[in-house]
Structure formats: C-alpha cells, structure tokens
C-alpha cells in the first residue's frame, strides 16, 4: 500500500529508545520511512500556530498544555511561533496523564511525570492540548479527565503533529499537522530536536 510522502527522505532517522505515547514493541533495526523532514516540521508548526491564532481570535486567553514527552517541546515551539507572528505571549504548561490512563491494569505502574499549570490557572481559559501523535484517542481522553481535576477551562482544543487514524474513542483533533494513513502494525515516531537531536516524522514497520 503506498503512503503519501512529502518532502525529502531522511536516510535512517535516529531512533529514540524512550517510550512515548505510541510505544508499541517494534524492531528497532527496521529502517524507517521519512514522512516529514526537519523543514516540513517547521512549516507544519508554523501553520498550526497560524491556525490557533485564527481560531482563537488572536490567542486571547489561550493556554498551551503539552502532553509529555514530545507534546511539551511542541507546545513551547507553538508559543514561540505565536509570539513571533503576533507578539502575544501564550502561557505554556505541562499535563502529565499517567495517573489517568486506562491501561494501568494492563501495563502496570509507570513513573509519574511532572504536571505544571501556568501561573494564571486554567479557569475560563481556552486550553489547547498539544501532543505528537493522535492514535487511539485514549491519551486525549485521559488528558480531558486530568484537565477536569485542574480547573474549568472555557474550551478545550487538541493540536497534534500527526494524526495516524485508528481511533478507539469519539475524539478528533482541532489542529492536525499531517494526516498519515497507517496500518495497525506500523509505528509513527515523531522526532523533535529537544529530545531526539533532530526534527522529523518517521514511519516504521508494516508489511514490507
């Protein structure tokens, strides 16, 4: 099955051994297929920043909450781009969802990450959740539950760099960097310079 490919192909993208929201066991030796090159990631982030400005009437009352691990640097980048475009400072926070996951029984206890709510709080704000990959939708569901315990935002939106499909819950993203049709045995890995040394989106596995 052919996959839409944009941009140049990176030969063999570095693979982080860290688990992320899509940590399916896969053969690390498999050569990945580059879906987005570093320059594409920059363009996509710029576009989402513009869309956020557009959809929130100039990021009024907006708060960006990154979901660890890679949602956090992405949230900071979006804030930086929004600042560059319009000179607006959007508060950035971190929302760890470990304690709200629904697969605790299946996967066992994980180390808990740090949740950081920006100084202004979340009440009556437009909260934009930022994650790297939207897949089953379970992370977003857990994030909504976690958010409920932190305050009462006016609206909650979801921004993701990649939507790879296969939703298991009625959840959609408000801002999508790139839609990538995948099969279930494939793995989409988002790389960000802050944690992986380079930017990019790479597709691994599947029938070859």
């Amino acid at each position, binding site marked *: 099955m052919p996959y839409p490919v944009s941009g140049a192909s990176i030969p063999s993208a570095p693979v982080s051994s860290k688990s992320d929201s899509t940590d399916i066991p896969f053969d690390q030796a498999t050569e990945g297929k580059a879906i987005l090159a570093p320059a594409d990631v920059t363009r996509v982030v710029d576009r989402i920043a513009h869309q956020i400005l557009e959809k929130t009437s100039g990021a009024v009352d907006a708060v960006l909450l990154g979901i660890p691990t890679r949602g956090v640097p992405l949230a900071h980048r979006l804030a930086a781009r929004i600042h560059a475009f319009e000179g607006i400072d959007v508060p950035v926070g971190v929302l*760890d969802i470990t*304690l*709200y996951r629904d697969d*605790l*029984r*299946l*996967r*066992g*206890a*994980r*180390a*808990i*990450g*740090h*949740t950081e*709510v920006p100084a202004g709080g979340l009440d009556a704000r437009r909260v934009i959740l930022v994650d790297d990959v939207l897949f089953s939708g379970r992370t977003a569901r857990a994030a909504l*539950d976690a958010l*409920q*315990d*932190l*305050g009462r935002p006016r609206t909650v939106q979801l921004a993701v760099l990649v939507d790879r499909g296969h939703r298991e819950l009625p959840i959609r993203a408000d801002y999508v960097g790139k839609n990538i049709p995948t099969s279930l045995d494939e793995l989409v890995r988002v790389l960000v310079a802050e944690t992986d040394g380079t930017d990019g989106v790479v597709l691994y596995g599947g029938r070859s």
Partner: protein
Amino acid sequence: MIRHLLSAADLDVDRATLVLDTAAELANLASQEVKKLPTLRGRTVVNLFYEDSTRTRISFEAAAKRLSADVINFSARGSSVSKGESLKDTALTLQAMGADAVVIRHPASGAPHRLAEWIDGRVVNAGDGTHEHPTQALLDAYTMRERLGRIAGLRVAIVGDVLHSRVARSNVSLLATLGARVTLVAPPTLLPLGIERALGARLRTSFDLDAVLPESDVVMLLRVQRERMNEAFFPSAREYARCYGLDTARMRRLPQHAIVMHPGPMNRGMEIAPDVADSARSTVVDQVTNGVSVRMAVLYLLLGGSAK
C-alpha cells in the same frame, strides 16, 4: 516493582528512589483543585489492624481514598478475631472478598510475611511486632530529602528504644540503602547486643547523646513504648528524660541546619520536650503530611503493576 512491601530491605536504591520520586509528584497534585485521582478506581484496599493505631491507619486510608480505591477498615477489636478467628482464616475471608491489597499491622513479628503466602493480593506491612515498619522509613527518608535536599551522606542519630522499635529497624535498613550514616543512641539495656557488627560499617552506636548531637544532621527520636516495657529497662522515666530526652538546651548542641524527627505519637516531656516538638526544627507535622504521599506512591506502584 516488587509484589509486596514487607520490609524496608525489599527496596534497593532504584526502587526506594522511585517510591520517593513518585511521592513527590503525588504531593504536588495535593495542591490541585480536585485532589482525588481516578488511578485505583475499582480496586479494594483492606486495612487489617490487629494493633491500635490512629495515624498509620488514617494515613493509609487517606492515601487509598485519594487514589479512588475502595477502603475496608478491619480492626481486630469488635471483629470475629475477638471470637478466636485465626490470621489465616481472616486472610482467606479477605481473599474471598476480593481484596487487591491488604495493609496489615500485627503485634507478631513476621505476620505480614505469612499473610503474603496466603493471599493473591498485595501485602503492605504497616508495622509488625518489633520487626519492621517500612512505610514509616520511606516517609522519614522523604522528609529528610525534602528538608535537607539529599539523603546520601547525611548523619542520622536514631535515639531511644532501639530494641523494641520497628521504626528504627526499618530506618536503619533503608537509610543504609540510601547511603546515610546512622548512629544508634540508647541506654545499653535498649540497644540490641552486637547490632553494629551485624549491620556493618555504616552503623555506629553510642550511649552518649550529648556527644552525638553536634555531629548530626538529623535526630530521630523514638517513642518510649510503655506498652512493651514489662521489664525495667531504665530506672525511671525522669532519668530517661534526663539522659536521652531532647530538651531545648540539648537542641542547641545541634548544627544550625539539623532537623528533629519523631514518628509519633509523642510522649511530650519524656523523649522530646514540648518546646522542641513545636520548634521550627521539628518535622513532626511534615512527617504526617508526607506519610500520605508516600503511602499513595506505595499503593500506586504495588497495585498499578498487578497485571495478571
């Protein structure tokens, strides 16, 4: 993570640090608007208490409830234990009711170990006889790290009835794991014979509190356990207070940064003077607060991993 928490020695450096780090994150969440977390929804935690306790039982209950577990409190008094039911039969009853975790306090040393053989759920030792009280050691370590920034290299004096103290035993074990240097200070009658040989180079003993205080970062006072004092271990309560009680004058011998800990309940005027208990150095209240976070961490890490 391990299956049960029966002894502080069950924890190596990595696991102990994981518990403390998890507790620190959970403590942060205590400041959020809704303190209750859905993490252990649908799990049942039984508090099985064969010995009187207020703070430990309440602390475990609060910890389990904040994680949304269902809590069943079982105290020996007023239950079929007073009709002569054995620990094993009680354990099988709890098992049949589907307890995911049992928090047990028992006057017999080793009771939690036996219990762990009989039931499928996780067992947490909340104090057994004169043996161990691992969550107390964890919350003490957490409090030291919070107040002094580290545990490795700290000089900790544990003062009082070491012989009968499960708090002392668990602390000695955990603090050794985490790299602190412990000095046990007690009258000769209350210090187990040959303990320094048994536990090695990290442990020292002394009979002289005044000599130890100036070189201590932490002073941990143990409760004089009147209920276990069926023999004369020291001539009188006043003499004990004179020699081993921490009063204001003694407290001045401590370095500026040093903290004073007590697992509670305190005998004010006996092992700790009221002024000392209420001073800025005293961490007694912090220890209670931290106890809930640490027990939440323990329940989360034990129950979270129960994939069959």
